[in-house]
């Protein structure tokens, strides 16, 4: 059972199974290409699109990555400030929760006015979306530090800075990680949609064009590419988590 389980759950096997199912299902049920094009067509389209696909993948990755890192750093900064300055939290945290609900994607057009047509506009959208989950989770993690441990450190005569570095940050790290994992997928969505506000390269651009020129097969290629990028980013974070932040928050 466990042996079989391990084989069944390994990613390559899943990919293979899905591919086989795809191959079988399209002719079997005579599915129209607009619902699901044959896998062969999708593959051919991917090959045709290859250089653009690669360039787009890299560009979208860059936007997501820079936006995410910036958003994470700022988020951790604000979360920390909120955790340590009660008044700041009481005054601004509710406003932040409200701002989190602002659909930036809806006024990407204006973001482009503000930040120009550079990569910056997409980065800012990705940043904005990643920022909130990270800030909220940082606050949650830091304010959930076990008071017993904090007391222990102060009984050793630790300074606030020592307590922060030795205790608060590591004990909040698992919660912050959760925030980061939420943030990265939002960042990717932000980067893709951000590209719809005028750009030349990127998975989002290709997606938009594919729709404009009614190329359903290409939409599938792009969905798979987006999924791959998403899995890559999320997987990298999970790996970092498993490696460096394996303990539990209590």
């Amino acid at each position, binding site marked *: 059972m466990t042996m079989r389980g391990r084989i069944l759950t390994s990613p390559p096997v899943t990919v293979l199974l899905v591919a086989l199912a795809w191959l079988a299902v399209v002719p079997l049920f005579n599915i129209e290409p607009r619902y699901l094009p044959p896998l062969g067509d999708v593959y051919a389209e991917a090959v045709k699109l290859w250089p653009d696909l690669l360039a787009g993948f890299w560009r979208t990755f860059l936007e997501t990555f820079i936006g995410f890192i910036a958003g994470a750093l700022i988020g951790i900064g604000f979360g920390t400030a909120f955790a340590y300055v009660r008044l700041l939290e009481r005054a601004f945290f509710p406003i932040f929760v409200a701002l989190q609900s602002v659909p930036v994607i809806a006024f990407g057009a204006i973001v482009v006015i503000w930040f120009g047509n550079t990569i910056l506009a997409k980065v800012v959208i990705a940043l904005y979306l990643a920022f909130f989950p990270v800030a909220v989770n940082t606050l949650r993690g830091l304010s959930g530090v*076990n008071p*017993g*441990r904090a*007391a*222990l*450190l*102060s*009984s*050793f*005569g*630790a300074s606030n800075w*020592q307590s922060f570095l*030795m*205790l608060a940050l*590591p*004990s909040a*790290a698992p919660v912050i990680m959760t925030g980061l994992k939420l943030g990265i997928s939002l960042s990717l969505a932000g980067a893709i949609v951000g590209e719809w506000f005028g750009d030349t390269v990127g998975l989002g651009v290709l997606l938009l064009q594919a729709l404009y020129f009614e190329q359903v097969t290409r939409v599938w290629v792009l969905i798979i590419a987006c999924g791959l990028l998403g899995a890559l980013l999320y997987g990298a974070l999970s790996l970092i988590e498993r490696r460096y932040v394996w*303990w*539990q928050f209590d």
Partner: protein
Amino acid sequence: MSSEGIQNGGMAARSKASVIPPHLQLVNVWKRFGSEPNRTVAVSNVDLSIAPGEFVTLIGPSGCGKSTLFNMIAGLLPPDSDGSILLSGQPQPDGALLGKIAFMPQKDLLFPWRTVLDNATLALEVEGMSRRKARAKAESLFPEFGLMGFERHYPHELSGGMRQRVALMRTFLFERDLILLDEPFGALDALTRAMMQRWLLDIWERHKRTVLFITHDIDEAIFLGDKVMVMTARPGTIKQTETIALPRPRDASVITSPDFMEIKRRLLASVEEESMKTFALSRDAADRKTMS
């Protein structure tokens, strides 16, 4: 009756104190939480005095204020202004005690992201010792604490008894003459616990520090202590101080000796009275809660 107990305990401590100053002395220490009408008096009117090198155990029912008292002695909570804490005869203003006393809290509170070794050196690091030096110093204690070979393990890989020994090692490495141990063996099963007690006495006899030790377990209190202090139900105060004249070094057989039995019988009666009170108190509280 209970006020008499305090008088006696206080007197005895004071007369001893006149020869060499007591290592730790508490004079009329109170701690009140909140303000009327929700005031909780956690600790009331505690006077006590501990000589250098003494091993004093403190028992009392759950919630009677033992941990609160420890927090004050460790400098984590200021006592109310009507009392004072003296260390080797010196009164200690608020905040002055932090960093002066080795304190081991009720739970082991190991840091899960640090290895056993790095948990042990925590206090040394806070004091600013270099990591290399701190580790070298800690490593030399590992055999004695029965933790050889576990230096690079993480706390979650240890059994309860081992975790407790790591926490103790951490406390011992923070080299202060006065050690406060808040129920260090509370989470252990009875058999492991018995072994740890004997081991602790062994360590103590070799390091000769002053120890103040909280427990719920009368056997443990008698087995370990030079003196056993009994606290009353909340508001906690010292009700009785029993000097344990059992010879040292003590081993397991002491527990079944008639002298031990005699002391235990006396303390049991005293403690039980207090336990009953807490029981009644908690019931009252619940009643009040359900009514409101």
